[in-house]
């Protein structure tokens, strides 16, 4: 059985208490709101993507539990300077990790520090807390594909 310590690792507590890249990003060319009605988590993700599809800057704001705050904080840290193609790879890897079988080890080579969130899969009601920021970022970036929003 997983213990609470697997979920609330020190890294997560640390990111909860002092989230990185927290606040509004102004200017930014994509942003989106994410919302988890189950627990009332609210998240706003802002990204600045340059012409070469590199995430130049990324920030988030919102109210959430430690898992959703730490996950967003870790996500922004890991994506700054990465390409949108890298984002897609990490999105899939993160999603796989959060929903994998308990026995599957996370792909630390791809995920790096994000692997500390692997413990959520033992806590089904908390998986959405961890994935909310990724879905929010995806909708921010996907909106950008719509011509009306392209700058």
């Amino acid at each position, binding site marked *: 059985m997983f213990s609470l310590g697997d979920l*609330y690792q020190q890294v997560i507590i640390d990111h909860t208490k002092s989230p990185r890249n927290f606040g509004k990003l102004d200017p930014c060319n994509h942003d989106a709101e994410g919302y988890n009605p189950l627990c*009332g988590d609210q998240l706003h993700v802002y990204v600045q993507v340059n012409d070469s599809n590199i995430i130049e800057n990324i920030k988030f704001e919102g109210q*959430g539990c430690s898992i959703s705050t730490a996950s967003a904080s870790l996500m922004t840290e890991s994506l700054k300077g990465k390409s949108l193609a890298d984002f897609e790879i990490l999105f899939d890897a993160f999603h796989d990790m959060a929903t994998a079988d308990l026995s599957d080890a996370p792909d630390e080579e791809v995920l790096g520090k994000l692997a500390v969130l692997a413990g959520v899969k033992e806590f089904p*009601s*908390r998986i959405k807390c961890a994935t909310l920021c990724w879905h929010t970022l995806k909708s921010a970036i996907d909106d950008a594909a719509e011509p009306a929003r392209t700058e």
Partner: protein
Amino acid sequence: MMNIEKIRGDFPVLHQELYGKPLVYLDNAATTQKPQCVIDTVRHYYEKDNSNIHRGVHALSERATAAYEASRETIRAFFNAKSSKEVIFTRGTTESINLIASSWGGANIGKGDEILITHMEHHSNIVPWQMLCERTGAVLKVIPMNDAGELDMDAFASLLSERTKLLGVVHMSNALGSINPIETMIQQAHVVGAKVLVDGAQAAAHIAVDVQALDVDFYVTSAHKMYGPTGVGVLIAKQALLEAMPPYQGGGDMILMVTFEKTQYNDLPHKFEAGTPNIAGVIGFGEAIKYIQSIGLHAIAEREKTLLDYASKQAQAFEGLKQIGTAKEKACVLSFVLDGVHPHDLGTILDREAVAIRAGHHCAMPVMQFYKVPATARASFSIYNTEAEVDALFAALAKARDMFA
């Protein structure tokens, strides 16, 4: 004095371990556990009497019908309704309110009319009225509350007018525990000619309700919060109102005579019970009411007050804990936030200590908005909870606080 050990013995689910620790169930406002007698009654129905009601002439159908109607009588007596015609079975509080909004509201609410609710309503007593207002052009007004979670009775008085057609008020708030002064509110609302709907989902298992003495127009509740099955509840309403209301749903059981030209509706209460109902649920509901009666609401209220006082004292002394909802009149609910630990994390950490609480907005988002919190943690008590369980709650909270220290 109540014998708590004996009562605990009545509830099989309580006697289990989670993660190697004894279960401490403090999520009673979400749903209560079921005593053996209710489980046995439902089981007996399926094992011996299962059949459809109000239609067969065979023995099983007659037994099932008799048990179903006996439940109606038990529930009528419990709430002191004038007649069993005033007791309509539904899927629960939510469906009861939707029935009123759709049937009574559709026939009686028009443009410019006002529907008055309170700031502490459950979503089920907000959304159906918003939907009705959208359909009809009526206006939804809200009675404010103070920081303790008590309704502002002066504001209530000034919001009442001839335009007020309905007052919808929760008897006991699930998010705060506040017990509202429904008796005076009903009187005041009646002075301006408004009808009154009381949401008794939380209250009915804790407070004696006499619908005739209250002169309440609509009283609604759910069985599952009163030791009965899920998916069944009741609407109790004055007969004259129900007679005048159009049916809510059409189908079997609610008709006397159907031709393609015209349908003649059945008498009360069947007019509002279209289709095969939750027969086992209704029969179990009746048994749950008998269980409450066997202990007595007076003894229940006294015991639950002792327990809430015990828990509130510990809450006050607990560093970093802020109670949400400190009304003078309250019962069974300890809603709170803890500095530095989000309620959702508390829920998970407490779960691993085998302490079941609710974390979230409790289907009362406007209450969260009022206190400017995204969510609260809520421990809610019932007759089978003990002081030792309250101690386990606070020991688990201390662990959570240390984890985030």
